[in-house]
């Protein structure tokens, strides 16, 4: 049975539509990440699931029951807010108690749950403190604890790491992953950070302008992006994009001519405008006379330790290549590179959709 189902869910503010017919199926125990740039509708979608925003159209089900008109409190969800939303006038213990009280569990059971959650999250020593007396990372854990004590059917996370510094973010990210493995609860998690999405998700939902661009495992969205948007959004540094025209079985652009890989079959029509995508790591330095070698001028070199990023100029195109550090070249030098043909992504320029099967 699916934990959460969105069928053609729409959100409008007056005449402005911000979420356009989202379809999504989340299985029991799955960790699903809504990923996209700000304003893509991911947070609004999450808030509709939480019941904090009205659903303007379509159906939203949790645990098989349609909840469009169900109040947040009756949905059996728990949410971790971006700014944690801890009640400042209550201690950590009281924050958790406050979340438990509507469940009418009895004092002993409440205490047991709080102790258990505090144990898991390492909050035992902090239970009597107020939020103002906690560090950012501690507050974050209290926010998770407050959600966990309720043992909800679904956890909702709204950019939970965005207020932490880089080092803490990595640590808490790892903790969230571990927690999910341990509890096995369904999670819907919103972020704009692709690293969080790639490391945590069982399934990534990439959104843009209120539409779902692609749904897939982290491997799928990285290896087989369905659109230029997904291709450039996932991966760092982002994928190089070159606009070409298919001419006689080759993709031709200024200073560049590559045969259409056979796996695209006859989906590339002669004369079609095709965007060619290649990840920086798939551009290799080769000898001048190697097959497929292209001449490129090095504009900028960024040394990163293990590897180096080269800003290359090929014809009138800028390409970024990621090479082993010992292969880096000085700015102004001319080098020869080859695009790894098996890693080429082709997109129809006009629609932005992938031409892969």
């Amino acid at each position, binding site marked *: 049975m699916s934990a959460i189902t969105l069928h053609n869910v729409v959100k409008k503010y007056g005449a402005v539509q911000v979420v356009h017919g989202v379809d999504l199926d989340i299985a029991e125990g799955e960790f699903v990440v809504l990923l996209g740039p700000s304003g893509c509708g991911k947070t609004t979608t999450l808030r509709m699931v939480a019941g904090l925003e009205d659903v303007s159209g379509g159906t939203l089900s949790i645990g098989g029951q349609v909840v469009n008109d169900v*109040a*947040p409190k009756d949905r059996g969800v728990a949410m971790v*807010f971006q700014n944690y*939303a801890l*009640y400042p*006038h209550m201690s950590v213990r009281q924050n958790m108690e406050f979340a438990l009280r509507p469940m009418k569990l009895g004092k002993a059971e409440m205490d047991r749950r709080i102790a258990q959650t505090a144990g898991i999250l390492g909050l035992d020593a902090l239970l009597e403190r107020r939020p103002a007396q906690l560090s950012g990372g501690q507050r974050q854990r209290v926010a998770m604890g407050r959600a966990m004590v309720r043992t909800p059917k679904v956890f909702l996370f709204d950019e939970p790491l965005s207020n932490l510094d880089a080092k803490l973010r990595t640590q808490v990210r790892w903790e969230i992953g571990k927690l999910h493995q341990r509890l096995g609860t369904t999670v819907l998690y919103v972020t704009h950070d692709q690293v969080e999405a790639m490391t945590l998700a069982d399934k990534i939902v990439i959104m843009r302008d209120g539409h779902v661009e692609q749904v897939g495992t982290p491997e799928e969205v990285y290896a087989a992006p369905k659109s230029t948007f997904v291709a450039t959004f996932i991966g760092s540094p982002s994928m190089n994009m070159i606009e070409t025209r298919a001419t006689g079985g080759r993709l031709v652009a200024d200073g560049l001519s590559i045969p259409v890989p056979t796996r695209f079959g006859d989906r590339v029509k002669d004369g079609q405008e095709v965007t060619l995508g290649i990840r920086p790591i798939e551009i290799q330095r080769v000898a001048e006379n190697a097959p497929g070698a292209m001449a490129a001028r090095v504009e900028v070199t960024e040394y990163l330790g293990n590897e180096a990023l080269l800003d290359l100029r090929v014809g009138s195109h800028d390409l970024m290549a990621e090479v082993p550090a010992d292969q880096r070249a000085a700015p102004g030098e001319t080098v020869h590179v080859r695009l790894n043909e098996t890693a080429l992504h082709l997109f129809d320029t006009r629609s932005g959709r992938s031409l892969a099967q």
Partner: protein
Amino acid sequence: MNKLSTRQTILIYLALGVVLIVFLMPIYLIASSSLKPSPIMFQKPPAFLFAPTFEHYQDLFAMRPFGKFILNSLIVALGSTAFSLTIGSLAAYAISRIRHKRMNDVAFWILSMRMFPPIAVVVPYYIIFKTAGLLDTPLALIIVYSTANIPLTVWLMKGFFDEVPIALEEAAAVDGYGLLETFLRVTLPLAAPGLAVSAVFCFIFSWNEFLFALMLTGSEAQTATVAVMSFWSSDAVQWGRIMAGSFIILIPGVIFVLTCQRWLVRGLTMGSVK
């Protein structure tokens, strides 16, 4: 700001000294005159050292039921404060949370209710309360003072509610609380300082008010401000009693200033200066 030279510092303290003397002298006069024996009340130069007497205070409570008038003032002030806080903070919460362009108009309409000249509505009040048989009752004053206290509470509390993050209320909603419960358990406790400030302002305004108390009460519901004034209208001015009564009346206001002066700006300008 620029660093001050010693000369400038001395000049500033001198000017400040003059200002303080001018603004505090009348208050000192009330306090000292209330304790001065009548013969030296107007002695010149004024006596700074004298044997204080409590005869004026004794007279005050012996000659007229001044205790009762103070009790009336308290009943009216507390009644109006409780009523205004209840109604005002609910309205303020609604105004703070409903995002709609008309809400601004509603808020300004409520504020403008406080600004109308009381004298303009004294006649209608008089006739209405007379008809309703409410003349000379504390209830009449409680109602009338609330017209000033509700707008004040709405504006002050709106500012405090605006500062409570909505995410906290959303968290409570997801945790299983309804709107009223969320308001009472999360929002209101966090706006508690606002509630205290509003309460004090409502109390002081009602306690100090004179015009309506004069027009709408007689011997039964008379408040302390009207009673003090009545020592003046008789043929001999009883300065001792006036000063003793005045001193009692100004105590709550002075305590308020000394204890929560940091909220005064916000209250007196209705939140337009924070």
